[in-house]
């Protein structure tokens, strides 16, 4: 992604929700599109770093209630501190399976979740800790699940990649790319039929935009005017491969919006306020029966793709630039600029720290799931019998 491409679209959607976000012309920039010269395909290691846009201070002026902002601050703290804890526990060899952290990307989940109602639905990918917690799932059971404990939110049966909290209408995390975008249409369709005006949000990565299910889901949502909000967290990389090496367009989600009769919306995914405003607009549109939205949030993960991946395929300069754009300190500064006391923010941080410690305690105290859980929960009757 070139800085140009980001500058093109983003910010506008956030700065004025009444105006239609700009429709980014689907085009191939010299740098955004891979393969413009087949002999230069995959010019590994010689590509310039993909740098973020400068911070948009004007977003201070977005019309957002302070309560909402404090709530988003707190949520980002929860996500950050919980993810750091998950990482620590991983280093202590307590997280047995894989795990995909959203460190650096917290503003997206926090901003979107704040625009949702408790009865709205959410779907996430394997990188779903943040999205699950942002919907209110209890922290202890989430952490316990990562540790594979019986008191985990999935009884230890799903693990990090499959977090769900149906009680909170968080309908699951899906580890095979694409499918959940189609499933999200189903809860949206159900709400449409039941006339509940619930909306459904489905998060996914930049890499997911190139899989077939993405296309099917977007077309069905648009055709049926479903209240589905598709949120692409474009962190510039798939696992290890930069998304622009394998996509025909520079903005892999936004540049495809037109293919479904939708507007192209790009937001700064490192600014919870900008995310919130765009999400709120999409939510209102969906509640009003005016159909789906597709939002592309530009962001960056601080760490590797999963577990111990050191993310060495990313140029230092790029990582450094994005660390400077860490959504949380920036949001902290915004709140200070808006007159919030440092001490208020510190006490939120400390509150959260206490909750994270408590959650850790809870998780560590859980037993490993015993054999009675092995054969349960395949069927609605609780069992797994396939014969008499």
């Amino acid at each position, binding site marked *: 992604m070139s800085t140009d491409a980001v500058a093109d679209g983003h910010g506008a959607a956030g700065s004025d929700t009444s105006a239609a976000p700009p429709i980014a012309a689907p085009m191939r920039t010299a740098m955004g599109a891979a393969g413009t010269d087949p002999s230069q395909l995959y010019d590994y290691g010689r590509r310039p770093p993909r740098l973020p846009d400068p911070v948009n201070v004007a977003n201070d002026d977005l019309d957002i209630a302070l309560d909402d902002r404090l709530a988003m601050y707190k949520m980002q703290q929860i996500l950050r501190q919980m993810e750091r804890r998950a990482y620590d526990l991983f280093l202590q060899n307590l997280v047995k399976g894989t795990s995909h952290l959203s460190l650096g990307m917290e503003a997206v989940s926090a901003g979107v979740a704040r625009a949702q109602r408790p009865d709205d639905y959410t779907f996430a990918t394997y990188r779903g800790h943040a999205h699950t917690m942002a919907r209110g799932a209890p922290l202890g059971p989430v952490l316990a699940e990562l540790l594979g404990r019986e008191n*985990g*939110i*999935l*009884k*230890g*049966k*799903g693990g990090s990649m*499959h977090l*769900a*909290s*149906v*009680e909170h209408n968080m*309908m*699951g995390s*899906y580890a*095979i790319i*694409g*499918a*959940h*975008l*189609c*499933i*999200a*249409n*189903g*809860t*949206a*369709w*159900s*709400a449409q*039929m*039941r006339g509940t005006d619930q909306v*459904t949000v489905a998060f996914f990565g930049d890499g997911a935009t190139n899989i*077939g*299910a993405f296309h*099917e*889901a977007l*077309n*069905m949502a648009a*055709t049926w005017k479903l209240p589905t909000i598709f949120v692409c967290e474009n962190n510039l990389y798939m696992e290890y491969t930069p998304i622009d090496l394998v996509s025909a367009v520079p903005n892999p989600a936004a540049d495809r919006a037109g293919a479904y009769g939708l507007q192209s919306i790009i937001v700064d995914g490192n600014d919870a306020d900008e995310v919130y405003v765009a999400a709120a607009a999409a939510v209102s549109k969906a509640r009003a029966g005016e159909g789906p939205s597709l939002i592309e949030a530009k962001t960056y993960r601080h760490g590797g793709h999963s577990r111990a991946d050191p993310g060495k395929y990313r140029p230092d300069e790029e990582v450094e630039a994005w660390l400077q754009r860490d959504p949380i300190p920036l949001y902290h500064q915004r709140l200070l600029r808006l007159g919030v006391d440092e001490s208020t923010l510190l006490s939120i941080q400390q509150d959260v720290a206490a909750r994270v410690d408590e959650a850790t305690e809870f998780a560590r105290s859980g037993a490993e799931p015993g054999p009675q859980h092995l054969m*349960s*929960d*395949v*069927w*609605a*009757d*609780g069992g*797994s*019998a*396939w*014969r*008499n």
Partner: protein
Amino acid sequence: MAELSPTGTIGAATAGLATAESAAASPGGTPVESTELSYREAVARGIAQEMRRDPRLVMLGEDIAGAGGVFKTTVGLLDEFGPQRIRDTPISEQAILGAAAGVAMTGVPVIAEIMFSDFFAVCFDLLANEIAKGRYMTGGQLQAPLVVRTHNGAGSRFGAQHSQSVENWCMMIPGLKVVAPSTPVDVIGLMASAVRDPDPVVFFEHKTLLAKKGLVPQGDIVDQLGVAKIVREGTDCTITALALMVDRALQAADRLQADHGISAEVIDLRSLVPLDTRTVLGSVERTSRLFTVEENPRLCGWGAEMVSIVVDEGFWNLDGAPVRITTPHIPIPSAASLEDLAVPSVDRIVETISRAMG
């Protein structure tokens, strides 16, 4: 609203022990009036019965509404239930099963049609990895009261990509129930039980059976998953079959009796998951020989599973090796002469069994 089932009750799917009993008799024994219906018509009637009962139930699929289905198995449903409940979709099988899965997660029952079972391959992730595993992966949180209907099997000279029998593609996936009726009355009763089942059920309608007629009692019909039917009693060997193969097994049994003096018991399995192993094991206990007649290509067909169960649990009852009669392990050819050779025929069943028993 007389709810009929082979056992008279709707028990837990795996509780069924009953063997064949005509669904055309009410629990009290008074005969119920019957009409003749085709298997094709039975599909629409079964769906309509359930849509009338449960106003939440919806269905989606390609060409199912305006056109009444490309196999005319959903004729009349759009007129009765309207375009919100009977929905035509784009050619997007992943979106279809995804939408069904999502609707079902909210507790709303749903039927999705995948036009040909061969097309399960374009949406297999939804079926095998999402729908089947959701409940388990979430420690019981997610529900999936959905039915995936499809048209299965050979006989139409459609060639390798529209003629497959893929019950085993589903049977091998933990978390899916698998049903394949062989008669109009079973279509209705099993459709009802599939719709009412809180778990994902894959419902195979056999293309070559669509024109088959049968007597169907009036009123609502509700059957039970996981209950096989002994459709012909016999003493010398047991033949298990499914869907189109049931009639062939029955005809073969008649010929075995007439020409070879072999008395074959024929079991219509009706569902592969749950599997009524007791009925099969009980029969083999009496007959001491097992033959399976399956339309799946050879390798890893359901017959293999059946054989492995029967030898494991009934080994000392057996007087000879269980023998599988299957489509060979080849794609289905399109020419009539070849397709007829590929799929187990009455001749082949008779020959195989008479040779094995001879």
